[in-house]
């Protein structure tokens, strides 16, 4: 464990020899980083800008004599956006927006709770660690597309889920049960993943903190609330942030498990993808820009409200551990 805690310290070392190598290394760093930035500019930055531009245009209606799409587009300003918020399109959009939000809130909450519970169990396990570690990786390794057909099979009308539950629920048909099915499938795949990340956070909490707490008479629940939870918070927050952003763009599960054009599970990504494959790039781009803004806002709000520090997670956690250790030691002395 010492290595864990030392790793960030060693990262500070080079600053000692900084003055000697600044100009040279600056150029070298720029050279080494430029391929990555060129690739990211081409596959991320350019498409995003292009999507924003695209959302302000519409293609000239109609096909030519050979049945090919007529080239050329027309600037329509915000028309693609206003079209989304009026008439039938509005209903479809708000349903998709609601579904996306519903999936995200419910699934991420469930996954976090379950993942935390799993991490605590794995942390307390003295034997069977290898087994549990291997099995926890299974849901993560199963491709989402495969897990979707797997759950569709499980949720068949005469499938194993209904046999176990002794109920006849038509899981994969339109309705609230379809949402439940998607959430179950998503939770199965990702809760163990959160568990792994949180477990890593748990393992760097020094044991002596718990010993000190025990000496002071803190019971298990108090220990969990006052030591475990605050100290795994950075690890947990980063895991939840990534899950949050991932669930907001959910596509594979509802698309394969339930199908296209199903109002009870259609997400914003499905909506945009549907428009795009039907060559309506303008509306598709408008949907994807809205989703992009939604994801950005959600990430921003999450970081602002809960203070998730993605890059500095390691550093801040270390600091928290150190501060807590100091405080406990001080308290132990005064007591």
């Amino acid at each position, binding site marked *: 464990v010492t290595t864990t805690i030392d790793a960030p310290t060693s990262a500070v070392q080079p600053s000692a020899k900084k003055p000697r190598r*600044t100009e040279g290394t600056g150029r070298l760093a720029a050279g080494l980083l430029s391929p990555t930035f060129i690739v*990211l500019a081409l596959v991320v930055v350019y498409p995003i800008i292009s999507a924003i531009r*695209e959302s302000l245009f519409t293609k000239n209606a109609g096909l030519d004599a050979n049945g090919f799409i007529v080239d050329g587009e027309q600037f329509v300003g915000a028309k693609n956006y206003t079209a989304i918020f009026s008439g039938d399109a509005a209903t479809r959009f708000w349903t998709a927006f609601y579904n996306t939000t519903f999936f995200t809130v419910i699934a991420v909450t469930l996954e976090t709770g379950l993942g935390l519970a799993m991490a605590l169990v*794995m942390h307390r396990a*003295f034997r069977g660690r290898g087994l549990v570690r291997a099995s*926890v990786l299974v849901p993560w390794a199963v491709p989402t597309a495969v897990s979707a057909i797997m759950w569709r099979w499980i949720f068949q009308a005469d499938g194993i889920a209904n046999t176990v539950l002794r109920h006849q629920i038509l899981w994969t048909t339109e309705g609230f049960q379809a949402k439940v099915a998607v959430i179950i499938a998503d939770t199965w795949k990702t809760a*163990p993943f959160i568990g792994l990340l949180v477990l890593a956070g748990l393992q760097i909490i020094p044991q002596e903190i718990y010993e000190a707490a025990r000496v002071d008479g803190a019971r298990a629940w108090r220990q969990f609330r006052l030591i475990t939870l605050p100290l795994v918070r950075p690890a947990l927050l980063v895991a939840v942030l990534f899950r949050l952003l991932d669930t907001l763009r959910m596509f594979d599960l509802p698309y394969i498990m339930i199908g296209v054009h199903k109002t009870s599970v259609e997400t*914003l990504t499905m909506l945009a993808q549907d428009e795009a494959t039907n060559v309506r790039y303008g509306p598709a781009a408008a949907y994807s820009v809205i989703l992009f803004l939604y994801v950005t806002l959600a990430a921003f709000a999450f970081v602002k409200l809960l203070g998730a520090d993605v890059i500095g997670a*390691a550093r801040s956690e270390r600091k928290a551990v150190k501060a807590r250790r100091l405080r406990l030691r001080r308290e132990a002395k005064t007591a």
Partner: protein
Amino acid sequence: MTAIAPPVAVAGRVRTAPPRKSGGWKAWLPYLGIAAIVIYCVAPFYWMAVSAFRRPNDQFEKTFLPTHFSTENFSAVFRPDVGFGRALLNSVVVAGTTTILTLIVGTFAAYALARLEFRFKNLVLAVIIATSMFPGISLIVPLLKLFTQIHWINTYQSMIVPSLSFALPLAVWNLTVFFRQMPFELEQAALIDGCTPGQAFRKVIMPLAAPGLFTTAILTFIASWNEFIIALTMVNKKEMQTANVAISKFTGAHGFDQPFGTQMAAGVIVTIPLVIAVLIFQRRIIAGLTAGGVK
């Protein structure tokens, strides 16, 4: 994230808190929890595997083991008209190329981020991580239009290029963490011996970073192997479909309305290599996952 923790250290750690002897049933609670987790994780996958080995005629059986063990579903998957072999090959090409390109480009960036001192370093890292958080669809819509114009639809590059958008940030982040773990004395020694920073990287760091590169390669490969929406959108010809897309579009090789047996068999085929890789390299993968924190 935090657990830059070398997995060995975690595994070899001796716990100081022993289970209380007097606990009675309480002592069994952790084992109960472990059993619950294992069942939770493995049971649905087990059901898929068992269903794949049933005869198409008793596909809807609910027995724990197939009453008549059969590999008929598997041979159905590989019938020439299904074209699943080609789909697997496509997946290997797309995921393999994405992994190789990502590693080549990402290694340079990660080395700079982990070992060199320059201004805006944290900003650069933040920007790279942020790009992985964008919703894929906002990239796919304009790229689909672009690829249609330059006749890239139904090509490997139309799937590989967009895949870089999520694979590259993942790889850079992972590799950065790995490079950071290596002692700086190594390079200092190399520099004192007269190496340039570039030589120090090539001759000293790279050979030692091989395990980290390998882990990153596995993680990147799995991420691109599991990709679905890009492959679905950029390709409409059956011969160019990846395995994931092919499975989702299976039409009955056996003439049922839903070819579940065939789908389960295909699902097992697609997943088994990953599960085996995961079991063999679990320590490395967990170290990589918890270090990356991304996917």
